[in-house]
């Protein structure tokens, strides 16, 4: 166990180092002078000179990387130039929003995707199956921003059931918090549901053709028990893996959806930062997302190790 942990941790450090170089390097490829982008409309030469000096923009890239990395190692991710707030504070502010949105989206995706997948597998080649397939295709091919705006027009403007956009902290008003998140979660979940439906369907078809399902039917079990207990349970494994992958992706921010619904999460933060050349924010957010991803993977690996005896040999 100890050796395993050491080995895995040993891999993490070079990975993170490589990620940090990648983040920093890619950022430098952005065209345009950050000092000019940040100097505002007047573009006062003294302000540009000040910004260049403050952010070491005139120095070689490895020197700037050194400054950034030594800050990061001391827990200082820098400061947003645009709004003058520490990047760490911004991340702490946005992270719960992004996690909540991602979780709600995954729940929506699972409920819709798995239900439709099961129905279309059980009722294969019937109108149910075709309908589920059409809905899945629709979900996959509908652009998020369009669906978002349509939902706003329908549920906020026409019917007045939900707020059009924005975000309310759960600590302020839980009901309002859920109400503001329902539409963006649905839009995000809808696209993932389509993929999930296809996966559930094919896994279910495979399982329903297996010997033990035939045995279960032969024992005289009701169709409901066969499908739900023997079929779905086994078919869910690859679907849940898919859900986990999608969840990880949602954590890095849902740019368009957050923009349409004005949800102040990671996606909006990073897009605004890129357009304003607010380098410290981009670097900080990407670094945190990448680290979270790596750490979650490590935790999963440790769990496998604990559970699966074959890995311990």
């Amino acid at each position: 166990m100890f050796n395993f942990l050491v080995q895995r941790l040993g891999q993490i450090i070079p990975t993170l180092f490589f990620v940090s170089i990648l983040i920093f390097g890619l950022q430098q490829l952005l065209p345009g002078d950050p000092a000019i982008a940040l100097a505002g409309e007047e573009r006062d030469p003294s302000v540009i000179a000040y910004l260049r000096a403050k952010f070491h923009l005139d120095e070689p890239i490895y020197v700037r990387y050194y400054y950034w990395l030594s800050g990061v190692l001391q827990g200082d991710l820098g400061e947003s130039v645009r709004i003058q707030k520490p990047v760490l504070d911004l991340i702490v502010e946005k992270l719960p929003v992004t996690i909540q949105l991602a979780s709600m989206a995954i729940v929506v995706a699972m409920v819709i995707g798995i239900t439709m997948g099961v129905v279309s597998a059980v009722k294969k080649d019937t109108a149910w199956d075709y309908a589920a397939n059409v809905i899945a295709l629709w979900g996959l091919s509908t652009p998020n921003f369009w669906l978002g705006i349509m939902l706003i027009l329908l549920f906020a403007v026409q019917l007045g059931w939900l707020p059009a956009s924005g975000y309310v902290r759960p600590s302020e008003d839980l009901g309002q918090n859920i109400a503001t998140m329902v539409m963006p979660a649905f839009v995000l979940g809808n696209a993932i549901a389509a993929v999930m439906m296809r996966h559930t369907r094919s896994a279910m078809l495979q399982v329903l053709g297996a010997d033990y399902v035939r045995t279960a039917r032969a024992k005289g079990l009701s169709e409901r028990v066969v499908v739900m207990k023997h079929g779905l349970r086994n078919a869910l494994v690859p679907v849940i893996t898919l859900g986990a992958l999608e969840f990880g992706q949602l954590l890095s921010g849902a740019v368009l959806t957050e923009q349409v619904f004005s949800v102040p999460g990671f996606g909006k933060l990073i897009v605004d930062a890129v357009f304003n050349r607010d380098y410290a924010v981009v670097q900080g957010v990407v670094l945190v997302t990448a680290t979270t991803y790596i750490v979650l993977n490590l935790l999963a690996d440790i769990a496998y190790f604990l559970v699966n005896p074959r890995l311990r040999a």
Partner: protein
Amino acid sequence: MNKLKASLFAAAAAVTLAAGTLAPGAASAQSTLRIGLAEDPDVLDPTLARTFVGRIVFAALCDKLFDLDENLKIVPQLATAFEWAGDNKSLLIKIRQGVKFHDGEPLDAAAVKFSLERHKTMQGSNRRGELAPVDSVDVVDPNTVKLNMKAPFAPLIALLTDRSGMIVSPKAAQAAGANFGAKPVCAGPFKFVERVAQDRIVVERFADYWDKGRIHFDRIVYLPIVDAQVRLANLKSGQLDFIERMAPSDVPGLKNDSRLKVSKIVEIGYQGITINIGKSDRAQQNPLGKDPRVREAFELSLDRQAIVQVAMDGEGVPGNQWVAPTNSWYAKSVAIPKRDVAKAKQLLQQAGVTNPSFTLMAANTSDAQRIAQVVQAMAKEAGFDVKIQSTEFSTSLNLADKGDFDAYVLAWSGRPDPDGNLFSFHACKQPLNYAGMCKPELDELINASRVELDAAKRAKIFEQIAASVAKERPIVYLFHRHWLWAYTNKLSGLRTIPDGLVRVQDLKVN
């Protein structure tokens, strides 16, 4: 194996969800005004601030020495009077008595001196350039300051109607240092409560405001909502009371909606095409940059009214100067040229280039792209081959700064005094002179306009400048947009001031 990994993710999500939903909510029953902004403002420090949208929030937070009225006339705010003295090289300003900052500190001449000096000397100050002509500030008595200059400076008072004229609490500014923008303390009608980046800025009524009789809301919440359609949807569904910068295409749709009102103001800025005539060697490699006749032909190929109609759905007024024809500083003697394709072709023939080709750089915003496309189509009829180069905005600024462009669709948000739309763009070597024009005789005129305090004489000088610029065409001015505001019909007391900032005084819900 996969299952386990998945359940770990799910567990983490569940924990966070639960943690986020613990505290119960507390609704407030105060009167709140909710304003939808088109962007998230930058830092809320008047000295460092850079964006237009930030100025909308400052209108509630930070009072200025002077303000503007609907006709761009200067009216008192924290100052009660001014007087030029000593060969017009100093400006005496009387400060309103009994004004307090949000932290209870008194606003006096010493505080004004502190703020002006902070604008002038703070590292990274965006006000330094504006206030450069002011050499020093003296406290004459507790209610009078004296601004000393080397020469008279006509635009000065207009500058003090904007961020340069905002007075911050010296005590708070000294305590916060460079972090003052995180919790600004000024003397405006509302004080800062909180800011969640990209989500909201909340301010609440300042009980000791000097003009509190005109304030009728307890709170204002500014919500940045980037998408114009979503901003409007929030207004229609009642989540917002007011939105700024509505999309022109949405105006007709609101005509039949009796619950909402629309206000239009001609902006103090302009939309135009900057032409590289001397910024870099590239100017000499292109007939447009090299030959004034080709530029004249280009301008004659354009129908400004049609550009406004197509690119802005008619929400703007055609223009040919740095101020709109509705502005009192507009030079009437330099009229907008009518479209004349035949004459344009003739000029091109004279110049010996019947099919000149150039690149028109346009930021990838919808406004700039539409303007570029209409211009391309119109110029084609006169024989121009215009290639549109769509460029991300920050990148386009960088290319413009390096002179790596032929022509550039560029807008300016405008300043109340015409000098703010003119000097930095047309005087030699100025930072915004992307055209690269440098004519000593024009510089002389521009400098003369800056020291002339007599409005009538100054207007005469502007006429000469306008005639000279119209001949040289470093910028082909196209039009001035309408600021489009939409708001609930219950809102009254709204003042339409051409700088496009929302004054919160007198605003109330009936």
